[in-house]
């Protein structure tokens, strides 16, 4: 279970995290950021059900653990209930909050990718098997930033759970080039912005073989 950011760093909100990383080419699921319940319902209707509704804010780092993510919201009335409950769940410590509405992406495989600061070796980039079991399974591989495309490809090759990367339960094999692109984009982001302390793309859902980040958390120096 992740801990609060260390002193000297702070986390960005989910929309800001995604904006920072997508500027460097990380594929992010389309989403709307809205302030109120009515806008959330309208955004959901426009995106098409089912959707995901989340509460986002600079001080909110780990939404799942706090129950601030509603998956598979099926229709307008469900969207209204979800939005209302999420806003009500905000605490004063959360500061300014917003609702984030995104289409519910379907994929049976979840990966994790990110950046982490190593005390000896500096910024590292990581890919691994994701989802709720990510830390228990701990099938990850890392390299030091910056990485080459060959490094990115070898990181993927180094994962133990190769069966998960091939064709899987009716879904096509993971597009390794697209996954390598994600890792290169993370490496580029870290190189371009030395204030980044860490980044999580968790999960990186595999949709039709292509990885797409549905959540992002970036920790930056204060």
């Amino acid at each position, binding site marked *: 279970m992740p801990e609060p950011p260390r002193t000297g760093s702070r986390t960005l909100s989910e929309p800001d995290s995604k904006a920072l990383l997508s500027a460097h080419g990380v594929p992010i699921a389309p989403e709307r950021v809205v302030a109120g319940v009515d806008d959330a319902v309208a955004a959901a209707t426009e995106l098409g059900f089912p959707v995901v509704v989340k509460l986002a804010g600079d001080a909110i780092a780990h939404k799942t653990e706090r129950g601030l993510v509603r998956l598979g919201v099926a229709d307008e009335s469900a969207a209204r209930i979800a939005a209302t409950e999420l806003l009500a769940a905000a605490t004063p410590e959360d500061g300014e909050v917003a609702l984030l509405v995104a289409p519910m992406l379907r994929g049976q495989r979840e990966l*994790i990718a990110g950046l982490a600061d190593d005390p*000896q070796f500096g910024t590292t980039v990581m890919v691994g098997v994701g989802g709720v079991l990510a830390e228990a399974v701990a099938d990850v*591989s890392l*390299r*030091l930033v910056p990485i080459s495309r060959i490094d990115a490809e070898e*990181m993927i090759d180094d994962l133990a759970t190769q069966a998960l990367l091939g064709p899987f339960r009716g879904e096509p094999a993971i597009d390794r080039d697209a996954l390598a692109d994600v890792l290169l984009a993370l490496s580029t982001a870290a190189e371009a912005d030395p204030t980044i302390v860490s980044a*999580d793309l968790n999960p990186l859902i595999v949709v039709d073989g292509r990885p797409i980040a549905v959540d992002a958390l970036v920790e930056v120096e204060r």
Partner: protein
Amino acid sequence: MTTREEGFRALFDPKGVIIAGASTHPGKFGFVSLHNLLASGYRGAVFATNREGADVLGVRSVASIDELPDGQADLVFVCTPAAANPDLLRACAAKGVKAAFVTSAGYGEAGDEGRRAEADLVALADELGLLLAGPNGQGVVSTPSLLCAQIVAPFPPAGHIGVASQSGNFVSSFLNYAVQTGVGISRAVSAGNAAAVTVPDYLSWYAADPETSVGLAYVEGVADGRAFFDAVRAVAEDMPLVLVKGGATAGGQRAAASHTGSLASDDRVFDGMCRQAGVTRAATVEEAFEAAATFATQPLPAGPRVVVMTTAGGWGVVTADAITKSSLVLADLPRDLHDAIDELLPPRWSRSNPVDLAGGETRDTIPQVLELIAGHPDVDAVIQLGLGIQSNQAEMMRSGPFYPDHGLERIVAYHERQDARFAAAAAEVSERTGKPILVATELAVAAPDNPGPAAVRASGRLCYPSANRAVVALEHLWRRAQHRQRRGLPLR
């Protein structure tokens, strides 16, 4: 002013050595180091200092460096107490010494005062233009110069592996493996506290050293990770570099604000760093030595396809399992190779990989089949099993009550000749085809004088104590080959 290169040259190929603090007490470092230096046949000038000016092992020592001739020694091996060392180094530098190996303790490992003394020593060595090895190290070995300036045994056979270690005891371990296996060492150094010269510094020098073709290092802490990475990557680009790291589990999963951070343990980062740098990381000290010995004595495979050749079934099965679990590939036996082997063997042979000769071999079958397998373009490497079993039986006959009668003398001689021939063939075919051929048998350790393993050693190669260990070593070779192929680097 001495250049760093002159300092390294003086450390590894000194024209003369001073043992500072030589002792008449055979239990003291100042005695042992002089003993080891003399016993290994070092041909340069040998001097010793001793407060009483005593004779030690026939070397007439002097009470002060000042009494020594100028320019005769370029390495000082320091066994004196830390407090005496600054004056000693000054006097040595004045006599033309270019490198100091300091065994003395009481430095960085000994609290704040020791750390200050160490920093002062480094500054002094810089000022004097001395290459400073150690302090708190066990010594230096260099087979091209027959140099064994260390406070521990052994002096290893000559070879091409260059050892650098943060732990002096692991230098001994690697050298002991060299003695056992016959796969030799070029240079070896215990970095001690590595106050001025670090493990990567030694490795970088080895990379440019024509006597060294493979680096082998034990590391614990890494102070500056990026500098370490840059150095080992540059070394690994020039030659195979095998690292074993202590403290791999220390820290474990760390507290972090991100999932990525908590998954990025020290060990996983180190592992990724090695992969990125093209460095071979071994899990254990013996695996590290065997990987280095394999790099030093076998060509790199151009691909992952391995054929196992065995004289008995079970060994082949287990080896096939190990290959299948690795990133190597148990090759499908090509049709034309199958047919060619079939010409040489009775019908009961396995007809697939592993190629089990099933006792169908006659006088020349093993070298012939090996030749066919290794010569085939769809085979990248061979593991050969079963060497020495006939000589093992021969030994029992030779030492039994019936020898040399009943035809025993003749059959014993035949078996021993044959096993030696098979071992020689493995090396010869490997050299000719440019493909690795690894011979594995427990007789390498159970009966090292068996003519099979003995002949493997005589060919300069490692006789692997088990097929599993041969597979691990071969996989290390393949991973390096793959790293280089992907980056367009030549296979070496």
